[in-house]
């Protein structure tokens, strides 16, 4: 497939935003159980705003993927109507929902609103409840985003449970890495906690992304030019595609890069997403702000390469019909 930057930025940016929210709420639940020092509302308010900024950034990138930006206002609302069958529609519902919930989460912390559902002495019950709901929505959004790709069964590189695991773990890893950098400024006592989780998530993501790379390297495509045109002969050569100047079919489904370029992108993302951030996180464990920020920035850039590769690697069966000018 041809990688489009609108979708690359959409998926990576909302991944960071979702991961950052999870990091904030993990901290809040740990501290509710007295496992971590509790934080003032400032920590959550600024954190939620940061997460929201990434989610909004993703939304802006998504607008670039519409036929016309104006469709955002005139037609995009229809996108919520087909949630029964379409994962894209589910994503379109969950994205604003997650944004709204993250906003409310920050707002409730800001105003310090409180309702006591449970009798015993537990502070912040309202935000804990809201955070739990938001967490469910965040995971729902991870699943919906990944299922958009994993549900197309003949895009065999994507049609696999690992796609969902990858999206979730990579989003989580980048969010926790950002949280580590954020904590270095806002709550230095949490840096160790976030660095630990960021490293664990990054390594887990390496295992599952590595697994999908291995799987895709040995994939056997079901469709062949024989099944495509229905002629049983071992030797079939396309002589003409029916046009010479190219068409949507030759632009949308081919990445147009050389095999060497593809391979180098793979190694670039494997280095930038996994070992380098882990090393920087490790070094920044005692609160080195520059190191932690660098860890996040490098991991994010790596994720842009990762997503580019994710799209470029998928081989669409329609390409069988477009092999020669």
């Amino acid at each position, binding site marked *: *497939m041809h990688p489009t930057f609108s979708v690359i930025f959409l998926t990576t940016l909302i991944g960071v935003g979702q991961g950052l929210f999870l990091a904030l709420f993990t901290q809040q639940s740990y501290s509710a159980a007295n496992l971590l020092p509790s934080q003032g509302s400032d920590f959550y308010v600024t954190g939620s705003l940061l997460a929201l900024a990434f989610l909004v950034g993703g939304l802006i990138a998504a607008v670039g*993927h*519409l*036929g*016309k930006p104006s*469709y955002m206002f005139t*037609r*995009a609302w*229809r*996108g*919520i*109507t*087909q949630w029964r*069958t*379409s*994962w*894209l*529609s589910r994503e*379109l519902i969950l994205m604003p929902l997650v944004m709204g919930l993250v906003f409310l989460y920050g707002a409730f912390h800001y105003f310090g609103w409180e309702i006591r559902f449970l009798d015993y002495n537990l502070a912040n019950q309202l935000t804990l409840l809201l955070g739990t709901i938001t967490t469910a929505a965040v995971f729902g959004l991870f699943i919906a985003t990944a299922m*958009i790709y994993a*549900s*197309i*069964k*003949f*895009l065999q590189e994507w049609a696999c449970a690992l796609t969902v695991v990858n999206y979730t773990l990579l989003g989580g890893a980048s969010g926790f890495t950002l949280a580590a950098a954020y904590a270095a400024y806002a709550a230095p006592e949490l840096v160790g906690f976030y660095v630990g989780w960021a490293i664990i998530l990054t390594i887990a993501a390496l295992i599952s992304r590595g697994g999908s790379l291995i799987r895709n390297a040995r994939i056997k495509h*079901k*469709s062949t*030019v024989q*099944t*495509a*045109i*229905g*002629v049983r*002969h071992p*030797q*079939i*050569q*396309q*002589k*003409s*595609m*029916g*046009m*010479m*100047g*190219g*068409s*949507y*079919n030759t632009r*949308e*489904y081919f990445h147009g890069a050389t095999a060497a370029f593809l391979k180098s992108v793979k190694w670039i993302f494997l280095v930038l997403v996994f070992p380098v951030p882990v090393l920087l996180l490790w070094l920044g464990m005692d609160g080195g702000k520059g190191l932690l920020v660098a860890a996040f920035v490098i991991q994010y850039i790596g994720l842009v390469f990762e997503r580019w590769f994710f799209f470029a690697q998928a081989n*669409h*069966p*329609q*390409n069988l*019909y*477009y092999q020669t000018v």
Partner: protein
Amino acid sequence: MTQLALVIDLNVCVGCHACVTSCKQWNTSGQAGPMFDDNPYGKDPTGTFFNRVQTYEIGSYPNTETLHFPKSCLHCEDAPCVPVCPTGASHKRAEDGIVLVDYDKCIGCKYCSWACPYGAREFDEQQKVMKKCTLCVDRIYDQSLDERDRKPACVLACPTSARLYGDVHDPDSEVSVAIRERGGYQLMPEWGTKPANHYLPRRKTQINIHDDELTRVDNPLKKEDIRHETSKDVSLDDWLM
């Protein structure tokens, strides 16, 4: 249930592209608006088409065969491009099984085109919506046309009658009989999309004739010609005479 479809006879398609041009002509002039053409007379012309004719070479020289292969939306019975659409713009009509895009609802997200394994959908770069073969839905029901003209433009244009059109769910229709009796098949059956359009394979017209069918050994007309040598042995007649 009706399922309108095309059946394309690869045995007689000569690759003339008449269906491509008549399709473009009809559909670019309709009320849905023109089909985009970029640089039509310049370098690298490109544009939106519903139908393409491709050419394949089968076998290796000198034993090759050329196959002209028209390809348009197959109006799949289990169309994967329909459930993925977030807006409901891409839909399959219950009454006749035609798969259509509502250009007023489409947001141009291109997801349906990813979900079509055949590459049958083409994005219109000017209207910024997804386009595909409509089976000339604005023509086949048009009461103001002559009955015989109420067929897709490509079917009427084909000089070799390689394109048959009709209801593949009616067992006695021309298309169903053609599929049944002439080995009609579907493209990429491995994905379970159940395309409604079918293709009829290339066939060689030949009969096998053996020598003995041309010259019968026991042909009675040749009886006289069969001369046996007379025997030198003593026969019963020699004793009696």
